[in-house]
């Protein structure tokens, strides 16, 4: 072996040593966390395209795009399992040591913060920061603040608007890290709300951050920074994130979040590899091309759980008669609507989506939802209702494909004996207009995407009398049924798991017994990745956040 050869051997040994050290280091980095990730290549950076989070303050965001960006940077007391499918809906401990059992007749939950927790800026996590977060949610009238008004004293706090005032239902002890939350009445939904990033503690002194366009520090595998609110956000690996069981560590050093409202361009960028993932669905026109050319890079799931249906206003003719409501249910042909959705509709008859605890596939009295509707039966029922020839206005909004959905529905209503027309509003004002009683919307398009994986999140806002107390209600059919109200009251204190059969019964009552709504299915969303991402094993399809970015990994 010559001089040159010896040098080569030394170099090879040195390289191998470096490789081993690097590999060990990587192991260290990835240790501790569980769940998520398919074990692909980690480190480096990836880029994600999105139409953008709607707010930089973790208590004020409202969109799915935002929750995906906030979830890796803001771990709350409770959190959701970093697992795909229904397993991801399980509430697991986050910053708290364990999921508490309620006491005081189901009204009190006691949490204990993990020891030694630090925010991304290095400051210690205090129990009182949690109360500060809830106070901010309530004071700012955040979209999700309603989930916390069941805490004792929260309603008073909101009404008085004095931020320095105490919320008696939240007791905290900074020394021990103990947090006690007391509710006005038992409600198991509180644990689910507490598992969302908007409920994550942030340091009171830095919330909000100095600039309203910068998020405050949080506890999470990543730190969120806004480079340019409408163009670029960045998630950087958080060196202060401790080992928390079942919460994966950061797989990448940096996740660039590129904001653009041009979904066509986002899709092109994912195709070309400029972006590694997009939070949006490829537009109707690009989707068939993506499906055909890159089938291994795209996944389609009805996720997050959702229900698409036509609301039927039970206080107005013709849908104040059950026959008329049943007629609509008989006439709908989900196969037609599958086409309107560009193949992204999963037909269903249930009000509850299949991923939710409490879902039990209904023996649908109107026939198999994936088969054509029964127009003759529907015509007969319309005649029986005495409303044949009745004018019906179908309300919809201009977001694609809702005008097409409404047009199909108008055509069906005309076929079964009504005289239907369409009223199209801008999507920005649509839901507040159909939810106003004075607008007398007879029927129209509506949908519901879960806020948290609890069946109550579907029935309470959409079909209860309680929901009608709001000036603008999501109970667009103005359903006020004592049986539903009583059942919801009974189920409020029970966990979904222990009351699954009762939720299924309620589903059956709403659809088969009363035909309060005309359900046609759930929309599948897409997860589209670049060539270098491991879409097969690390798509991170999550029932709450749509995609869990902590589960993403590169191939190989």
């Amino acid at each position: 072996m010559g001089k040159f050869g010896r040098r080569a051997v030394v170099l090879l040994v040195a390289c191998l040593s470096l490789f081993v050290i690097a590999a060990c280091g990587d192991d260290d980095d990835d240790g501790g966390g569980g769940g998520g990730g398919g074990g692909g290549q980690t480190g480096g950076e990836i880029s994600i395209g999105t139409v953008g989070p709607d707010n930089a303050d973790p208590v004020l965001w409202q969109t799915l795009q935002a929750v995906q960006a906030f979830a890796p940077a803001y771990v709350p007391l409770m959190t959701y399992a970093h697992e795909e499918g229904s397993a991801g809906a399980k509430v697991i401990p986050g910053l708290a040591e364990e999921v508490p059992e309620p006491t005081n007749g189901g009204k009190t939950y006691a949490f204990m913060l993990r020891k030694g927790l630090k925010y991304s800026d290095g400051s210690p996590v205090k129990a009182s920061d949690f109360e500060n977060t809830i106070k901010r949610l309530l004071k700012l009238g955040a979209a999700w603040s309603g989930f916390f008004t069941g805490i004792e004293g929260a309603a008073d706090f909101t009404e008085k608007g004095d931020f320095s005032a105490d919320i008696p239902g939240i007791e905290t002890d900074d020394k021990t890290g103990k947090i006690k939350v007391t509710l006005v009445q038992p409600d198991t939904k509180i644990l689910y709300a507490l598992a969302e990033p908007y409920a994550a503690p942030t340091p009171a002194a830095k919330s909000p951050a100095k600039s309203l366009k910068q998020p405050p520090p949080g506890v999470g595998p990543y730190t969120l920074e806004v480079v340019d609110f409408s163009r670029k956000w960045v998630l950087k690996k958080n060196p202060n994130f401790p080992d928390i069981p079942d919460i994966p560590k950061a797989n990448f050093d940096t996740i660039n979040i590129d904001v653009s409202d041009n979904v066509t361009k986002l899709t092109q960028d994912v195709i070309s590899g400029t972006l590694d993932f997009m939070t949006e669905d490829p537009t109707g026109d690009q989707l068939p091309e993506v499906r055909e050319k890159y089938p291994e890079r795209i996944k389609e799931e009805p996720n997050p759980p959702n229900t698409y249906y036509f609301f039927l206003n039970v206080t107005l003719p013709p849908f104040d008669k059950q026959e008329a409501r049943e007629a609509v249910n008989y006439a709908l042909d989900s196969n037609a609507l599958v086409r309107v959705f560009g193949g992204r509709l999963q037909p269903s008859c249930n009000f509850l989506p299949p991923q939710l605890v409490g879902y039990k596939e209904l023996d649908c009295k109107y026939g198999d939802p994936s088969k054509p509707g029964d127009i003759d039966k529907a015509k007969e029922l319309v005649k029986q209702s005495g409303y044949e020839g009745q004018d019906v206005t179908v309300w919809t909004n201009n977001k694609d494909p809702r005008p097409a959905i409404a047009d199909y529905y108008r055509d069906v209503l005309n076929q079964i004996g009504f005289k239907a027309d369409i009223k199209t509003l801008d999507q920005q004002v649509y839901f507040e207009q159909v939810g106003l009683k004075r607008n007398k919307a007879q029927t129209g398009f509506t949908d519901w995407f879960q806020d948290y994986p609890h069946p109550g999140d579907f029935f309470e806002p959409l079909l209860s009398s309680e929901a009608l107390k709001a000036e603008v209600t999501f109970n667009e059919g103005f359903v006020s049924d004592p049986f539903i109200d009583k059942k919801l009251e009974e189920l409020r204190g029970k966990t979904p798991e222990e009351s699954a059969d009762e939720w299924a019964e309620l589903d059956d009552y709403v659809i088969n017994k009363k035909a309060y709504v005309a359900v046609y299915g759930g929309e599948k969303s897409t997860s589209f990745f670049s060539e270098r991402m491991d879409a097969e094993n690390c798509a991170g399809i999550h029932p709450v956040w749509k995609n869990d970015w902590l589960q993403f990994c590169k191939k190989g």
Partner: protein
Amino acid sequence: MATEPATDFSFERPATYEEEARREGAHGVSPWRLALRRLKRNRVALAFGFLFIVVVGLCLAAPLWANGPAHTDPFKNHLTETIVLDGKKTNVVSLEGTPIGPTWKGRFFLGADTNGRDTAVRLLYGGRNSLLIGCAAALITACLSVLLGTLAGFVRGFTDTVISRTLDVIWAFPVILLGVALGTALSLQGLELGPVKVGADSKLIPILIISVVYVPYMARPIRGQVLALREKEFVEAARAQGANPLRIMVSEILPNLSSTAIVFVPLLVANAILLEAALGFLGVGVKPPEPSWGTMIGDGVKHILSGPHLAIVPGLMLVTTVLALNVFGDGVRDAFDPRATVRVEH
């Protein structure tokens, strides 16, 4: 889109018809006959005028096509139906939502849209709506413009100030922006002016919006012309004979404005059709399920890759119609007033 007034309204009227007629060797012929003679000589303008009549005829014949070869109506969804093409069963709309393209046969001659509605049938019915709105809006604009322009130019003073400043305010807005703003505002509750109620879904809404936004473009040149006419000897003579202002306006001024108004109308119709298409494209024109060329283009653009016919076909009809009207309008202008350079631009 310019916010500055871009309409060229240089009417050099002092050259009399007699002068023009003498030049053309038609002394003693009435101005109308002279204009008609000039128009007849303009073969290009006549050909495009004929093309416009063909388009109108086709649109009026829409029910014949719909009830005949197409066997449908413009609103009927055929989402789950199949048709036989070259002996093969074909979905009108595929499970992935891609509509069938042109079959060049009676049914779905120009293909279907994403709701499985026959594009050819909707194109013809949509043309009826686009033409109806365009023509009605142009006529209302013309009437309002003549009325306001005459009042402002003849009465002058405070009336002129109020009318002119109001027109300035309307003019200050870009046409499409103003149209969209009005359309959005009226899309929920419609229009209620005292006892007059217009439903939000009524075609009167786009007609009124388009009429209003174009008034300044015609009223201002009319006002300019009236200002010149009111100083003419024949007006002085009428005044000396004791005619009251209303009589002078009706008997002396208006007849002299007729050729200007006629020149404006085809150009206004073309612009009104274009604006209707723009409003429809932006979702504030004709309300669904009624078709119009603009709404069809708007819906089609979303599927330009999978169903290019959805946007291209109504786009071609729109271009053909507007081109025909513009060329014919130029011919009319040349015939009635060869020196005028009337354009309606925004």
